[in-house]
């Protein structure tokens, strides 16, 4: 007993992303857009799942995207490579699922109690309200930041994916949101 | 030589399913046969081809009817005839769909399908043969068993209230509602013909005798006695207008009770939707 369990590891070919926040912050739509951006050219497989039911409407809503160049066996995340936490509650709930050395991105206005120094913080909600012109695009700003910080998808591909899902009349707002997220995150990298 | 010529009588024989042996399973004098004969004559008078008629039924005495008739036949599960018929009609809107059902079948186990078929106003003609009792299972009380009436499950008299089938259909959204009895067979035939030509959900309540159970348990006598009772207790819509509520108690108003063309028919409405979507509309 235990001989096998000591030796196992999550396969290296998987990149696991979780977008978390409160219901209504657009985490599921964010994950859908990210999946379309990443999987669009057919070179990578994606598997997107979400919390479904009452918790999706409040508390710590989450949506996962698993990315791999190979067939994705297990559809859900096992150990996160990237966690986006838009609220304190979601960080508290999901920080334990982040792997050692994994990337943590938070909204540093709404999330203040952070159990590590190794994270990227940006005021997504404030940027959305003050710079992008609508609080609704905080999730899109976060996607821009994810693109800049991880390279899991390039900026132009992301913009196209965002525009494909944007309601008519909001295209410019959404394009700008990606740009803001990307730009602000680039600053953090330096 | 006879001079009185009214109608071709043997037309009914043309509509019997080849190979299916008569006589029917029904008791001697059962009103189901009379209603079947009326349906055949209505269909024949309207000139429908046998190929365009689908007869759908559920479970019960009356629901055996499609087996005998040379139409496409769907003899389904208890209470569900209208739901099956909805599938047939919606899939092949040019077909004439006739549902033959009983009071227990349509109103108890099938009550939900009944009100929703009315609500949709789908172009189905439902002939509900109301004998106030479950015949096939041996005389149990049904949703139309009158107050205080006897059945094998109401041995001390029925404590429940009963449905007025026609009121129910009208309230639920049916756009044609008619009633007749097996005594008034020629009028029943007319009601059915009018219902068949109506575009929308049409209900014809055919009051029929189950002397075997209802008649025996409620001392109403044999088939003939029950037919005569139907004659005595029925009043036409015209006559009913001149009668008080008190006078109308225990009477059946027969004739066309409700008819409307204002509400659109479901299949036609859906076809409009399909056409609109095909043009790129919403």
């Amino acid at each position, binding site marked *: 007993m235990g001989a096998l369990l000591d030796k196992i590891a999550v396969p290296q070919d998987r990149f696991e992303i979780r977008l978390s926040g409160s219901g209504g912050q657009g985490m599921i739509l964010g994950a859908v857009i990210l999946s379309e951006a990443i999987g669009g050219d057919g070179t990578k497989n994606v598997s997107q799942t979400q919390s479904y039911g009452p918790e999706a409407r409040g508390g710590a809503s989450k949506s996962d995207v698993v990315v791999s160049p190979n067939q994705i066996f297990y559809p859900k995340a096992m150990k996160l490579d990237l966690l986006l936490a838009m609220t304190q509650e979601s960080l508290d709930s999901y920080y334990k699922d982040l792997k050692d050395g994994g990337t943590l991105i938070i909204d540093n206005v709404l999330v203040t109690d952070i159990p590590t120094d190794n994270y990227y913080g940006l005021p997504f909600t404030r940027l959305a309200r003050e710079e992008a012109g609508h609080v609704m695009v905080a999730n899109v700003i976060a996607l821009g930041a994810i693109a800049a910080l991880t390279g899991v998808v390039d900026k132009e591909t992301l913009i196209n994916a965002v525009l494909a899902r944007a309601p008519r009349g909001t295209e410019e707002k959404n394009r700008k949101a990606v740009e803001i997220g990307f730009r602000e995150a680039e600053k953090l990298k330096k | 030589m006879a001079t*009185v010529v*009214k109608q071709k009588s043997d037309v009914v024989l043309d509509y019997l399913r080849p190979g299916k042996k008569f006589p029917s399973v029904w008791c001697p004098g059962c009103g189901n046969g009379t209603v079947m004969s009326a349906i055949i004559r209505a269909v024949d008078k309207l000139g429908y081809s046998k190929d365009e008629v689908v007869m759908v039924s559920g479970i019960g005495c009356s629901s055996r009817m499609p087996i005998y008739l040379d139409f496409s036949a769907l003899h389904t599960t208890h209470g569900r005839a209208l739901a099956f018929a909805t599938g047939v009609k919606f899939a092949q809107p040019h077909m004439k769909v006739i549902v033959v059902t009983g009071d227990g079948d349509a109103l108890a186990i099938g009550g939900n399908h009944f009100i929703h078929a009315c609500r949709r106003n789908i172009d189905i003609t439902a002939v509900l043969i109301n004998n106030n009792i479950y015949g096939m299972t041996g005389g149990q009380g049904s949703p139309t068993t009158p107050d205080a009436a006897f059945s094998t499950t109401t041995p001390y008299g029925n404590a429940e209230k009963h449905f007025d089938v026609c009121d129910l259909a009208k309230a639920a959204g049916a756009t044609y509602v008619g009633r007749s009895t097996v005594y008034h067979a020629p009028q029943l035939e007319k009601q059915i013909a009018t219902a068949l030509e109506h575009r929308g959900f049409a209900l014809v309540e055919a009051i029929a005798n189950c002397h075997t159970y209802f008649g025996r348990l409620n001392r109403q006598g044999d088939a003939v006695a029950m037919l005569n009772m139907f004659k005595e207790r029925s009043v036409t819509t015209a006559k009913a207008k001149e009668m008080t509520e008190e006078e109308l108690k225990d009477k059946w108003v027969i004739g066309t009770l409700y008819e409307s063309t204002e509400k659109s028919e479901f299949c036609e409405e859906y076809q409009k939707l399909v056409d609109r979507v095909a043009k790129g509309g919403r």
Partner: protein
Amino acid sequence: MSDANSTDQARRKPPQTKYDYSAGPPPVTINMSWCKACNICIALCPTQVFEPDRDGKPVLARQEYCTQCTLCWIHCPDLAITSNYK
């Protein structure tokens, strides 16, 4: 209400006219193998054309009174009566 009463009621009207069916077939034909002897035709016939046989099935006892009124075959639940005059 008894069987006898109702039958009598239906027979109240006396026959008015006689018809001669001798040149052709009888006014109606009864399919005895389909007939279940329910008595409806016998009771409803306004001119008392039928009488029940030993099994209760109708026989044409007074065919000359048949007016081709249609009541018998239109009510026959077993489609056992057809008129021969159309």
